[in-house]
């Protein structure tokens, strides 16, 4: 029996352990002993002693450890590939979790911009930040996963099932969502940009976002769901300056629901007799069916949260690294407060500054 020594282990968060172990044990044995006392599995531990990273298979004696010596333990980050496979179906309510700061922000109390359209909630992307959105849309990965999503019938089923309006529309929705054209549209950054632009414009016209999700779609499934889609030339005129739009067009506003309930802006009370409203009919710019469909599609997406990419599980310190250092350079030195402010504002530095100046996050 080899000599038993008592060593100290120092780890993250002031962790201090004293462990007795025989010198003929291996480093892996030591890690397992540490795992018993600390909440860090052996596989995630990295041990450092005397300027060296200890290798699992080596015997402790080879490092000349002696009683009273200290080994430092560093926790490795959980590896991406160790995470559960992302093909797991998305949790339906992620985008609508009332405790999710982004959802709250998007709710009636928040800015309400693009309410219901927040497939990015978990990705640390603030959908209210146009630049963020822009860069998202430019990312080929995002577009790819968007189109991938749309082609997965299981996910489509979930989207439809999660959304009463969509479900009420029956099989046509499926066809639409699965249609090549819709997929192309969803994966085309320009179309999405135009939709966003459209929403802004509608808001600029004094309409509250979320004025009834997509009643046109619900009310006239025949017209909206079954129609040829998209009508040719629908997006022919992207520069929609139409500040002259009539408020009467409101019900067809594509700003799907402000409520945390994502795209389900309006309760399914329609009678099916409401004719599709043509917000831009006078200008012949955009086919209302198309708008409705898009609103519906986007709303549906709001419903299923963020499966487009693996959820950002990084701690907020990492997620908001850029913003944190910006706040630091602005002279906001309370790191904890900065993090809380960024979490509350979904990573928007300007909003975070305001939040801090108002005494938030203390």
């Amino acid at each position, binding site marked *: 029996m080899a000599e038993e020594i008592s060593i*100290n282990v*120092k780890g993250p968060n002031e962790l201090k352990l004293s462990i007795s172990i025989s010198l003929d044990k291996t480093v892996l044995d030591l890690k397992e002993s540490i795992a018993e006392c600390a909440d860090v599995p052996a596989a995630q531990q990295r041990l450092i*002693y005397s300027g060296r990273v200890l290798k699992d298979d080596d015997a402790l004696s080879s490092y000349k450890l002696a009683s009273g*010596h*200290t080994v430092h333990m560093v926790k490795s980050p959980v590896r991406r590939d160790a995470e559960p496979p992302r093909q797991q179906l998305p949790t339906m309510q992620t985008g609508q979790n009332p405790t999710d700061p982004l959802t709250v922000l998007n709710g009636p109390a928040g800015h309400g911009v693009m309410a219901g359209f927040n497939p990015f909630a978990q990705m640390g992307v603030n959908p209210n930040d146009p630049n963020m959105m822009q860069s998202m849309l430019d990312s080929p990965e995002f577009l790819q996963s968007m189109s991938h999503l749309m082609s997965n019938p299981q996910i489509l089923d979930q989207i439809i099932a999660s959304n009463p309006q969509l479900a009420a529309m029956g099989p046509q929705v499926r066809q639409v969502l699965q249609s090549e054209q819709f997929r192309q549209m969803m994966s085309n950054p320009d179309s999405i940009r135009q939709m966003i632009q459209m929403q802004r414009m509608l808001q600029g016209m004094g309409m509250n976002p979320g004025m009834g999700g997509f009643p046109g779609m619900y009310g006239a499934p025949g017209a909206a769901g079954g129609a040829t889609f998209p009508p040719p030339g629908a997006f022919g005129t992207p520069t929609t300056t139409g500040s002259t739009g009539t408020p009467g067009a409101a019900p067809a506003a594509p700003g799907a629901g402000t409520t945390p309930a994502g795209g389900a802006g309006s309760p399914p009370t329609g009678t099916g007799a409401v004719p599709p409203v043509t917000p831009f009919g006078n200008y012949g710019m955009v086919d209302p069916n198309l708008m409705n469909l898009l609103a519906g599609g986007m709303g549906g997406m709001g419903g299923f949260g963020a499966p487009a990419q693996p959820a950002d599980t990084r701690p907020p310190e990492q997620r908001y690294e850029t913003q*944190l250092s910006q706040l630091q350079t602005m002279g906001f030195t309370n790191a904890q407060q900065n993090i809380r402010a960024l979490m509350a504002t979904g990573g928007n530095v300007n909003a975070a500054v305001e939040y801090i100046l108002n005494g938030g996050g203390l």
Partner: protein
Amino acid sequence: MAVVPRNFRLLEELEKGEKGIGDGSCSYGLEDGDDITMSNWNGTIIGPGHTVHENRIYSLKIHCDDSYPDSPPRISFLSRVNLPFVAANGQVEAGKIGVLAHWRRNYTIETVLVEMRKEMASPTNRKLPQPPEGSVY
């Protein structure tokens, strides 16, 4: 004040390294415990948090020649790293980092490691793109 001779100084540092006195962000020890000249040392720096270095462990080699601690140790990174004071072969360029350029006799191996760690967290270096973790020179 009496000048502490090289070997006493290094013995002191060795003990401190083994016992792990300090904040634990840096670690160092003799490469070969039987080396009575105490010239070659290993060091590690745990990458500072909230930077690109977070969760990384950088391994270094430290050479204390006969003139130590009157002159600074020679240091090179074993783990690949992108920092302005580290040459393409991993060698730390003494002229480019204050702690070595303005060496004082009371500085220790730990001082150097801690200072380099601070550099990693400096606003200019904290976001430098880094080679993949685990790659070595």
